[in-house]
């Protein structure tokens, strides 16, 4: 009798489930795309795609919806990482959507391009005729997400209808589309923020430097710290100051808050996340503070 290590850890199980899902998308859909923002969740997705398809190439391109207001450190990381992997990067640009008159830029100190991304994403999906977009959303992020399927079907307009979701049983995913439908697939649905960080530590994945504590010029707004940048208009009472911060999520510079932190290594960050008392979206995302059902409303119109 061979001794068998039957105790898979939770990370082993979550990884196995996610790799299975990524392979299912590739096998069942005609033209998938993997969405990559340079954020920690999509960095995990890239790793999972390596696990699923190496030594082969990814059977889909990698795409970033670039708001034009991203952190430069993240863009540098994005380009370098995809090049290292030898995969194809597509960039869908919100700036181009604005220039083409597809969307109108918000103005004022609270202007954000977050909402505009949806149009750019849908346009890019249509232009490239993608039928599936793989994303790094997690169920623990927000309560509308807790009810979303791993294969989340969208109609012609990219809209999510929470009342008409297909039952999802065992690991048997039904990837068949109706005419005009597309599907968003979330392989790390069942992961938590802590799982993501533990996995990054276990796999020793490189992250953009802004995830670790660094000195930065910030200002305070609604109890959150925002990076001083050309993309955000400060009001008179919003004086800049310099402090050690890190970012817990990475999105648009206009709506992503920093947290005061001294966590300079992966280990420090994992410890900090394990001890945190505030959710990541509550702490750092202005877009989700807008209303009680902010995420649900955005998803219904095609947001991720």
């Amino acid at each position, binding site marked *: 009798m061979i001794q068998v290590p039957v105790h898979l850890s939770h990370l082993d199980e979550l990884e196995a489930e996610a790799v299975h899902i990524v392979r299912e998308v590739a096998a069942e859909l005609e033209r998938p795309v993997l969405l990559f923002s340079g954020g920690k969740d999509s960095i995990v997705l890239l790793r999972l795609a390596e696990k699923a398809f190496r030594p082969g190439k990814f059977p889909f391109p990698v795409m970033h919806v670039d708001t034009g207001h991203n952190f430069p450190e993240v863009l540098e990381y994005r380009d370098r990482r995809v090049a290292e992997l030898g995969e194809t990067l597509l960039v869908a640009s919100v700036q181009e959507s604005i220039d083409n008159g597809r969307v109108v830029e918000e103005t004022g100190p609270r202007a954000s391009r977050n909402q505009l991304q949806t149009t750019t994403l849908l346009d890019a999906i249509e232009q490239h005729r993608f039928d599936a977009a793989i994303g790094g959303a997690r169920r623990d992020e927000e309560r509308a997400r807790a009810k979303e399927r791993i294969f989340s079907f969208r109609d012609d307009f990219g809209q999510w209808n929470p009342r008409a979701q297909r039952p999802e*049983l065992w690991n048997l995913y039904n990837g068949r589309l109706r005419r005009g439908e597309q599907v968003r697939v979330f392989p790390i649905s069942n992961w938590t923020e802590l799982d993501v960080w533990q996995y990054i530590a276990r796999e020793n994945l490189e992250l953009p430097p802004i995830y670790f504590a660094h000195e930065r010029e910030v200002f305070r707004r609604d109890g959150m710290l925002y990076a001083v940048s050309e993309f955000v208009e400060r009001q008179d009472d919003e004086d800049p100051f310099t402090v050690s911060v890190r970012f817990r999520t990475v999105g648009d510079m206009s709506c992503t808050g920093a947290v005061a932190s001294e966590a300079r290594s992966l280990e420090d960050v994992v410890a900090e996340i394990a001890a945190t008392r505030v959710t990541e979206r509550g702490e750092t995302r202005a877009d989700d503070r807008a209303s009680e059902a902010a995420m649900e409303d955005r998803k219904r119109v095609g947001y991720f």
Partner: protein
Amino acid sequence: MSVTSSELMATELLRLVTAGSVDDGKSTLIGRLLYDTKQILADQLEHIEETSQRRGDGYVNLALLTDGLRAEREQGITIDVAYRSFVTARRRFQLADAPGHVQYTRNMVTGASTADLAIILLDARKGVVEQTRRHSYIAAILGIPHVVVAVNKMDLVDFSEERYRAIEQELRETSERLELRDVRVIPMSALRGDNVVERGEGMPQSMAWYDGPTLLEHLETVEIAGDRDLAHRRFPVQWVIRPISDSHHDYRGYGGQVAGGVWAAGDDVVVLPSGRRSRVAAVESLDGPLDLAVAGMSVTIRLEDALDVSRGDMLADPMESPTVARELEATVCWMAERPLEPRTRLVVKHTTRTVRAIADELLSVVDIHTLEDQPSPERLELNDVARVRFRLAEPLAVDSYAENRATGAFILIDESTNDTVGAGMILSAMS
């Protein structure tokens, strides 16, 4: 509860499903589990405190933690299965919260399909009711290895041991009839927090007669590693990896998730349905060759011979291979509004293989009130559980669901709408 990150890296994952209606206090129980295990963070708590106050609940309503969608909050109902995570020092939990009333069967079957454990909730004042038996029945047919019956609202029966023992006795009869192997009964009050995570204040006096574990203690310690099928090697081929690059010119690997057994280089293999034989050259992951792979792991397997193997084929142990079936008899849970008539054409997705099928005969349907089989129904309605015989257009390599939950399960797809319309659990197979 503070847990260091290194301890957490190696915890086991337990998947559980909760069944019960709002009236039994299910949302409160889940809220209590999340709250007492310190999963609720400051901004979430602040949010439900505000909402409780606005609604005039008079206390912090933990049930609000599980409200997901706007319509649910507005109507005070639960629409869909919700998935939640929590973690303690001992385990990482993945909870599927299946609403009890509307479409209970469809929802519970969905949540139960991947569960290691089911929590079935009942109200101590009402005892074992029809719904309790239904939930137990679904746990049984879905092959959930472990069941906990949470006898809730003990505070409303004055923590009466006599009441509890009577319920326990009734449950024993149900479990025996349904052949549920591991059933644990726990008295509790989710509202007060007694016996959910902590024993609770005043517990020593009021329920001194109960000396078993709290719900969380049981969830943290129930043995699940043995539930894996390590005896019968099964590997549905999901994706063929053929780089055709200079460095990997002749590489041909089969990606998939191990559905049974322990796989290692040198193992004999039969490829089904073709019946060709080969041997495992290597079991690999991104990190390189593996000594072995067990059920649940996603890996890549290479064979010694260049066979024509593709997605949908099953690699298996030639000494104990699955049945290559043209006909199946299965327990089916029908999940569509449109009834299933005999002779309907459907699509069956089983592991990574999808074939056309005809529902040749509806053998019997379960009366949800008595749990007895009624022979030869004319059709199946939404939420019906029935025994159905299928004829397959192409063969599938299957096991019975009782033997293997991965190779014994399938979903039914309606080809005209592409909807998932049913779940199937194989009882027997004929070639």
